[in-house]
C-alpha cells in the first residue's frame, strides 16, 4: 500500500536554513545539511528545499549545497527557487537532487514544464502552485482560487484549478499546492481546494499551508485526498514530532512509513 508522505520544507538563503514571517526579518535557522540530516533521522519521507533568494550569483552556492545534501541524506529531495531553464534544472539534478520544483516561471513560460519533463522525465518535475481565494473564480464546483506568483506578491488572473490541470497536461509529475489563505495560520490545510485538485488530476498532490497539529494531516489525507503533506515551521520548531505524527496517522488506518 502506497504510504502518505510527510515532507518538511526548508527555506534556504546562501546555503543556510532561514525562517521568516512573510519573507521579512529572516532569521538564521542553522546549517541546511545538518537540518536535512536531522529530518531524515526523525522519519521524514522526503525533503523540499526552496532557495528563497535565488539569484544568478547564488547558483554555485546552491549546487554545492545540493551536492552536500546528496552526499549526506538517503531519502529523496526536491530543490526549487530560481529555476528558469533546462540548464538550471540540469545543474541541480546533476548535483544529486531527485526533483526540481518550478513556480512563477512555469506560469510565465508554460512550455518550460514540457521541456523539463521531456529532458528529465515527469517524475523529476514538481510544479508549485500558490493560490488565494478569489470569488471571481467561484463555480458550481466550489470556491474560486487565483494563482499568485513571486512568493505571493503578484496576482495573475489565472484560475488555480484550471492551471493545475494544464500543468498536468504539460507533463509535471507532481503538484505542490499552497493555499496562501491558510499558510502560516496553523488552522489546518485547505481541504476543499486540495480535494478538488487531487481528485481531478491523476498526478500526486502535495498539500501545503496551514498545518498546525497532527490532526490536520489526518484531515488532509482523508477529506483532502492529498498524497503528501508539507509543512515548515511546525517541524522546525518541534511543535510536531514526525514519528509521533506518523504513529497517530497509522492508528487512524492511514498508511505511513514507520
Amino acid at each position, binding site marked *: 500500500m502506497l504510504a502518505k508522505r510527510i515532507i518538511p520544507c526548508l527555506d534556504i538563503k546562501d546555503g543556510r536554513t532561514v525562517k521568516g514571517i512573510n519573507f521579512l526579518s529572516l532569521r538564521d535557522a542553522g546549517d541546511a545539511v545538518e537540518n536535512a540530516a536531522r529530518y531524515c533521522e526523525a522519519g521524514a519521507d522526503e525533503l523540499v528545499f526552496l532557495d528563497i533568494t535565488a539569484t544568478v550569483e547564488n547558483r554555485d552556492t546552491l549546487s554545492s549545497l545540493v551536492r552536500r545534501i546528496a552526499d549526506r541524506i538517503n531519502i529523496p529531495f526536491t530543490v526549487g527557487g530560481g529555476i528558469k531553464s533546462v540548464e538550471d534544472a540540469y545543474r541541480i539534478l546533476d548535483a544529486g537532487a531527485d526533483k526540481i520544483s518550478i513556480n512563477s516561471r512555469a506560469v510565465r513560460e508554460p512550455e518550460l514544464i514540457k521541456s523539463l519533463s521531456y529532458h528529465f522525465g515527469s*517524475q523529476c518535475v514538481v510544479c508549485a502552485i500558490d493560490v488565494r481565494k478569489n470569488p471571481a473564480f467561484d463555480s458550481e464546483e466550489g470556491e474560486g482560487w487565483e494563482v499568485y506568483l513571486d512568493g505571493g506578491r503578484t496576482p495573475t488572473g489565472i484560475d488555480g484549478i484550471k492551471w493545475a490541470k494544464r500543468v498536468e497536461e504539460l507533463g509535471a509529475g507532481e503538484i505542490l499546492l499552497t493555499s496562501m489563505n491558510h499558510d502560516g495560520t496553523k488552522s489546518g490545510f485547505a481541504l476543499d481546494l486540495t480535494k478538488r485538485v487531487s481528485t481531478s488530476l491523476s498526478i500526486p498532490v502535495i498539500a501545503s499551508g496551514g498545518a498546525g497539529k497532527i490532526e490536520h494531516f489526518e484531515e488532509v489525507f482523508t477529506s483532502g485526498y492529498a498524497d503528501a503533506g508539507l509543512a515548515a515551521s511546525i517541524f522546525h520548531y518541534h511543535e510536531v514530532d514526525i514519528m509521533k505524527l506518523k504513529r497517530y496517522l497509522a492508528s487512524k488506518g492511514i498508511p505511513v512509513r514507520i
Partner: protein
Amino acid sequence: MIAVVDYNAGNIRSVLCALERLGAKAELTCERDKILSADRVIFPGVGQAESAMAELEKRGLVETLRQVKRPFLGICLGMQLMNAFSEEGDVNLLSLFDNRVSLFPSDLGFKIPHVGWNSISFNTSPLFEGIESGSYVYYVHSYYVPLSSSTIASTDYDNLTFTASMAKDNFFGCQFHPEKSGEVGERILKNFLSLEVEK
C-alpha cells in the same frame, strides 16, 4: 571495484553517494573491460526505455551487459531494461529476463507515476537479509514488470501487484530506489555488495 554503468541516465549521483556512504569503492564507467572485470556491476537509471536502449547500443554496451558474470543489480529503469520488451517506446531490451514491461493501466483509478514509499513483500532472498517483509522502499515509475517466476519481491499498488525485485543467476533488479530508501535501502545495497552467487 564496483562498476556503475554510465549511459547518460539520470540521477546516477545518488547511487554513487549511497555507495560512498557504505564505504564501497565505485567507478562510473562505460568501458567494456572495466564492467566485465568489476567485482559488482550496478546498472542504475532514471529515464526513458527507448532512448536508454539507443544510448546503450551507441556505447556498445548491450552485449557487454549480457556477458557480466559477477553480481549485477539493475535499479528502476535499469531493472526494466533487463527484461525482453518495453511498451515505453515499443523497444526490445537486454532480454536477461523474459518479461514485458508495461505502462500502469490508467483505468484502475490510481495515480501515475507511482511515486513514494510503498511496502515490499517477499519470502527469503539474500538481497533482503536483515529486512522485514512489509518494509517501505521508495518508488518513482510509470512502467512496471508484471509478476513472473523470477519475481523475488512484490508490491501492491492499490489492486495491482507488480514485481518489486527480481533475480536470476547473478542478475538482480529492484524497481524501487535502494539508494533513496533510507536504512532499508542501505541494507539492501549492503546485502548486494556482500552476496556471493554461483553461475
